[in-house]
């Protein structure tokens, strides 16, 4: 079971990780973008942390929606609306819930990722966060169908996200700022795919059941 507290831990830990990886993400963005992805995500999740007191005792749906709204008004850029969408959509699927089963999480994150697809219109292989999110979702669904354990399912989705992230390196970007570089975008890992991998890796760590 993924309890509300575990969800809060996940968000809190992700905020910490973004603060640590801020410059790393910004450097990835400097290579093929405009050097702000790390700062944007960090600014957004610092704002989320300020909201923590007022959402501690709310349901998971409210927590996700609050995170989504906060990111929307603090991140900006392409990353802002996209990460905001993930949480807003996931929030719709988890209204009133105080804990999530693996299937609840699959439904929530699937809704979030579909939201990103609709907003950004990126396909797999366009060198965006989609390249990390979609494989992760597929692995998660696979695992859920096969009835594998929560730990195992989350671990697989994190691994799939990591592979997807690494696979962006050779790609020529077709969406986002990196696409302006044409061929020159190849050979660099996509910053958004990286922050998305970190999001799912953190979930696998924080939600592990012992």
């Amino acid at each position, binding site marked *: 079971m993924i309890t509300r507290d575990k969800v809060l831990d996940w968000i809190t830990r992700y905020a910490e990780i973004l603060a640590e990886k801020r*410059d790393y993400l*910004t450097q990835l963005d*400097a290579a*093929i*973008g*405009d*050097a*702000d992805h790390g*700062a*944007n995500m960090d*600014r957004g999740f610092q704002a989320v942390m300020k909201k923590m007191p007022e959402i501690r005792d709310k349901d998971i749906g409210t927590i996700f929606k609050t995170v989504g709204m906060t990111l*929307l*008004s*603090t*991140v*900006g*850029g*392409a*990353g*802002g*609306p*996209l990460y905001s969408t993930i949480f807003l959509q996931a929030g719709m699927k988890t209204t009133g819930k105080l804990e999530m089963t693996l299937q609840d999480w699959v439904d929530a994150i699937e809704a979030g990722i579909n939201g990103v697809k609709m*907003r*950004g219109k990126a396909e797999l292989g366009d060198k965006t966060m989609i390249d990390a999110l979609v494989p992760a979702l597929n692995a998660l669904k696979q695992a859920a169908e096969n009835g594998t354990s929560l730990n195992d399912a989350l671990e697989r989705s994190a691994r799939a996200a990591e592979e997807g992230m690494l696979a962006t390196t050779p790609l020529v970007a*077709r*969406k*986002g*700022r990196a*696409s*302006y*570089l*044409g061929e*020159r975008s190849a050979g660099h890992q996509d910053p958004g795919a990286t922050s998305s991998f970190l999001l799912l890796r953190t979930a696998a760590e924080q939600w592990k059941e012992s």
Partner: protein
Amino acid sequence: MKKLINKPEDVVKEELEGIVLAHSDLVKVHFDPNFIVRADAPIKGKVGVISGGGSGHEPMHGGFVGMGMLDAACPGAVFTSPTPDQMLEATKAVDGGAGVLHIVKNYTGDIMNFEMAADLARGEGIEVESVVIDDDVAVKDSLYTAGRRGVGATVLAEKICGAAAEQRRSLKEVADLCRKVNGWGRSMGMALTSCTVPHVGKPTFDLPEDEMEIGIGIHGEPGRKRMKIKTADEIVEMLMEPIITDIPYKAGDQVLIFVNSMGGTPLIELYILYRKAHEIATQHGLKVVRHLIGPYITSLEMAGTSITMLKMDDELIKLWDAPVLTPGLRWGA
């Protein structure tokens, strides 16, 4: 990092504070959400023209708020498009009942944030039209990519649409005019140096002493290609050729030439560039009827230039010449 700033995270806030102290006769500044709005907004019966984008391009957009140009502008963090709540509040602040035009530069982030803002504003019963500017010929236009960037033509569109709105033209007319400017304007830019985003503290890219980047945008992104530095005349040729052949402009066309500094290139060099741009346009049989020369759409302290050409007709010339009174652009008033 060599900048005249205090804390990197305070750059935009402190810049806005300076604008308040300098220009309170022309504009009001609203803080969180941040936007700059005409002191006399909303103007009843007038279409509101607003734009926004990341900071670091000054005077665009905030410096163009005032009579005859923008009703409001939303500055994001440096090189980061503003958030929907900024655009929503600005839209409400300028709506005089005749609707509001959003002039949006074609970047994924800007598009998405402005779309959301437009939806929210419509939800509140405000008529909103959005026009996307994508004039940068350095980027190939295609259905499968983010498409061309919005650069220099944005400044021209804001001036011309602002003048049309002053004439109390309808939202549809002002929006159509904006599309016309976008359709008739083309730009291309280059960089001699990178720029340093304050919170990053070092140049976005390194450029050897003898190299330049061709086909850059306005966010310190590397350009399409890197090559050895050429003479001013050769560089202007490299920028003008793709511009002229893109639409293409035809002999006899009247044009406005806009030679822009990316921030660190001084005026003395801009005149040397304009001289060549004018010569090339004339050789192609184009008639240069107006010009704009200076740092109007910048990329922090980057040394470099962009050239924008806009085909003009009598309507556009009249609107271009109409009075404008903003911190960054002023004539006839």
